[in-house]
């Protein structure tokens, strides 16, 4: 770690480029694993910093998120601009910019480069995808382009390590020989007004910044900058804009028009394109994959395979992890003396760590699928196909796959929202993803449907109820998204414009890197907190372990061989624990849902991880922790009576069983999800919000289910 923290004399470059140009590949190849993720308050983007040494020159690279333009519309985009211009207090201004452009689509890619040219920093242009350009008949004369622009232009193929030495040499050369980039041409009136604003900006100013203030008519940047630089610019800006308007200049279109015209002038002499229209590979594939009928067929086929893999492949792996956990537990139990330490390690820490690790197979499989789909270019098509449906609830096509993934597990689902560029869309998707019925809810559904909604009903009935339980998520999540997008996340977002990249063979190293990063960040950041929460729950179920009459439960349990007696003692202990007491205290709150304190405790205990509910029910219904089979628990639940009193009515009936299932369907009982939301949003506010709204929703829905259900009894 330490060698990454910048030594005093390293040369700093910032890496800029459109999305999907091979930026990450280049960054990884240049820096190896020698990089770390920067932390900037208030933003959710990940900015990586890396380092390499070339000919004994230390070069530090800052990886700016992929973008089509340096015109900021959100705090995340503003950060990129700040880093490039050296306006961020946490980073020094870079010494040079490295712009990577896709050679197969040079004109549009150079738009960003023209903005970089105005920053006042030296620029190196790296062209990727030259192989793809050549394959489609496009020939580029790099030398001519380099001469025309007056800056180094270097063809690279990062994954094949082509052009890297040339690129590194050029970077090193920049330290001694500064070749400034050309300044894109605007009309004389624009130039003079831009110069006026530049004059006001002082030493932090650049042509680019002055231009932005002039062209950015929605005022976001001006507002941010006035705060940051404590300048009052507004009157001068407005005056310049008025002056240009009176000359008949359209401020909204002048920038893009001038830049593209200039780009054409620069590029045209250096590029030759095939005459006429060629039908490429992508055209032919797209004819099928975005087709109204076949396209949808393939889409559902791919989704179906992903799901099957998620459930079928992950299942045995998760079971192995479970078995591994029991083995370690048994090992610990055999070497440690009976007592609090053993209980803490086995029931608290091991359960906690195991409860985190158990998500890994799903994360790995989902991210394997997603990164292959993304890297071959299909992800954009999937979003294209589903956009209409998602637009109905205020989201875009890009939210579909994260939401669908959440049916397996919300943790990878939330991580998968990283593909959504629009910040509000992404947040709305994160907030509703945990409403989708994940696989950890399945055991609850199966247990209660088996116990109360199977006997005496048609063969089709249990399946129908299960389907309806999943349906709750499928209906509530879009509705909630719609609600959030029209209230707290309201605002005009960026228009949904999405590049549909050309299809290509996914690269193994890119896929691997993404799986590795997702798994590692989950384990590191979420893992520690989840494990800590599990230990906390263990503690409130363990203490106090001496009853008011002075009985030491753990000792007494250890002293007896009789299983029934052990279970009875365990039940009494848990009833007396802080969590048990709380459960009894809150009985008035859960009674309207048709539950007694035992169900209350089981529900409370399953807030960190809902899958523990079956185990906790076994404990509080007196079966001991490892009930031999679920059938036994099922029968006990069927026969359970209020207060364990044979004269009282049965505890469960159809309405209370349904109310419990509805509660579990909607409630946010998953510490891992909350931690991942915290990790992805960068604040505690959103996980807290998710927890509160979902729990509130679950309570109200369960209440309605029970009370309305009673009317039919």
């Amino acid at each position, binding site marked *: 770690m330490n060698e990454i923290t910048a030594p005093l004399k390293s040369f700093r470059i910032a890496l800029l480029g459109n999305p999907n140009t091979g930026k990450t590949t280049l960054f990884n190849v240049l820096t190896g694993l020698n990089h770390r993720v920067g932390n900037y308050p208030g933003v959710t983007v990940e900015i990586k910093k890396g380092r390499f040494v070339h000919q004994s020159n230390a070069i530090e690279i800052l990886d700016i998120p992929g973008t089509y333009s340096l015109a900021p519309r959100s705090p995340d985009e503003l950060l990129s601009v700040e880093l490039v211009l050296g306006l961020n207090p946490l980073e020094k201004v870079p010494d040079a910019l490295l712009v990577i452009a896709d050679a197969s689509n040079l004109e549009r890619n150079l738009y960003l480069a023209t903005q970089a040219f105005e920053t006042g920093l030296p620029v190196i242009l790296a062209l990727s995808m030259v192989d793809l350009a050549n394959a489609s008949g496009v020939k580029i004369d790099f030398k001519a382009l380099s001469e025309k622009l007056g800056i180094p232009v270097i063809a690279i193929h990062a994954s094949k390590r082509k052009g890297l030495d040339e690129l590194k040499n050029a970077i090193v050369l920049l330290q001694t020989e500064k070749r400034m980039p050309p300044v894109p041409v605007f009309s004389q009136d624009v130039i003079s007004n831009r110069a006026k604003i530049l004059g006001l900006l002082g030493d932090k100013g650049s042509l680019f910044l002055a231009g932005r203030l002039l062209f950015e008519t929605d005022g976001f940047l001006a507002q941010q900058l006035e705060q940051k630089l404590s300048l009052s610019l507004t009157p001068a800006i407005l005056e310049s804009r008025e002056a240009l308007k009176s000359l008949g200049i359209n401020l909204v279109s002048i920038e893009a028009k001038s830049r593209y015209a200039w780009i054409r002038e620069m590029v045209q002499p250096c590029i030759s394109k095939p005459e006429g229209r060629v039908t490429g590979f992508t055209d032919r594939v797209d004819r099928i994959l975005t087709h109204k009928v076949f396209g949808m067929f393939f889409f559902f086929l791919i989704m179906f395979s992903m799901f099957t893999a998620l459930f079928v492949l992950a299942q045995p792996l998760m079971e192995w992890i479970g078995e591994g956990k029991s083995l370690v537990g048994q090992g610990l139990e055999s070497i440690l003396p009976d007592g609090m330490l053993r209980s803490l390690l086995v029931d608290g820490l091991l359960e906690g760590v195991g409860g985190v690790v158990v998500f890994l197979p799903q994360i790995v499989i989902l991210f394997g699928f997603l990164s292959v789909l993304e890297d071959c270019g299909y992800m954009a098509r999937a979003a294209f196909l589903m956009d*209409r449906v998602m637009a109905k609830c205020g989201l875009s096509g890009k939210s579909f796959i994260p939401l669908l993934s959440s049916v397996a597990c919300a943790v990878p689902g939330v991580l998968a929202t990283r593909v959504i560029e629009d910040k509000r869309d992404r947040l709305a998707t994160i907030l509703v993803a945990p409403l989708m019925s994940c696989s950890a809810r399945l055991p609850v559904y199966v247990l209660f449907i088996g116990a109360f909604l199977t006997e005496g009903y048609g063969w089709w009935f249990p399946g129908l109820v299960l389907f309806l339980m999943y349906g709750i998520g499928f209906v509530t999540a879009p509705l909630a998204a719609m609600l959030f997008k029209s209230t707290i996340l309201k605002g005009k977002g960026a228009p949904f414009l999405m590049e549909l990249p050309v299809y290509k063979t996914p690269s193994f190293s890119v896929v691997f890197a993404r799986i590795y990063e997702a798994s590692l960040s989950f384990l590191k950041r979420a893992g520690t907190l989840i494990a800590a929460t599990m230990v906390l729950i263990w503690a409130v179920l363990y203490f106090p372990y001496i009853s008011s009459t002075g009985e030491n439960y753990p000792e007494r349990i250890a002293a007896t061989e009789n299983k029934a007696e052990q279970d009875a003692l365990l039940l009494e202990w848990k009833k007396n624990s802080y969590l048990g007491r709380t459960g009894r205290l809150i009985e008035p709150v859960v009674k309207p849902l048709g539950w007694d304190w035992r169900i209350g405790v089981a529900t409370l205990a399953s807030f960190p991880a809902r899958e523990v509910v079956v185990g906790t029910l076994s404990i509080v219904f007196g079966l001991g922790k490892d009930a031999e089979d679920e059938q036994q628990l099922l029968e006990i639940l069927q026969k359970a009576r209020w207060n364990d009193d044979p004269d009282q009515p049965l505890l469960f009936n159809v309405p209370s069983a349904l109310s419990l299932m509805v509660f579990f369907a909607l409630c946010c009982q998953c510490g891992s999800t909350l931690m991942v939301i915290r990790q992805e949003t960068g604040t505690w506010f959103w996980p807290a919000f998710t927890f509160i709204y979902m729990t509130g929703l679950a309570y109200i829905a369960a209440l309605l289910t029970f009370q309305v259900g009673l009317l039919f009894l």
Partner: protein
Amino acid sequence: MPTLDQVPIGCKGIISSIRGEDATVQRLMEMGIIEGEPFELVASAPMGDPLEIKVQGYRLSIRKSEAARVFVQVS
């Protein structure tokens, strides 16, 4: 003059103007949807929205609501 959402699939032509003066227009133009540029309407998604167009030699998905602001000249 027709707008981009009104022309049939497979249609080629030239972009003639974009209606409006807001950030959306700015973003459309940054992505290369500019007066005088040739375009081709390649496909539409199953429910007719969004559209897939080719401009500046690449493919772009654009919703009908934004396409309705782009006036085009069919060739």
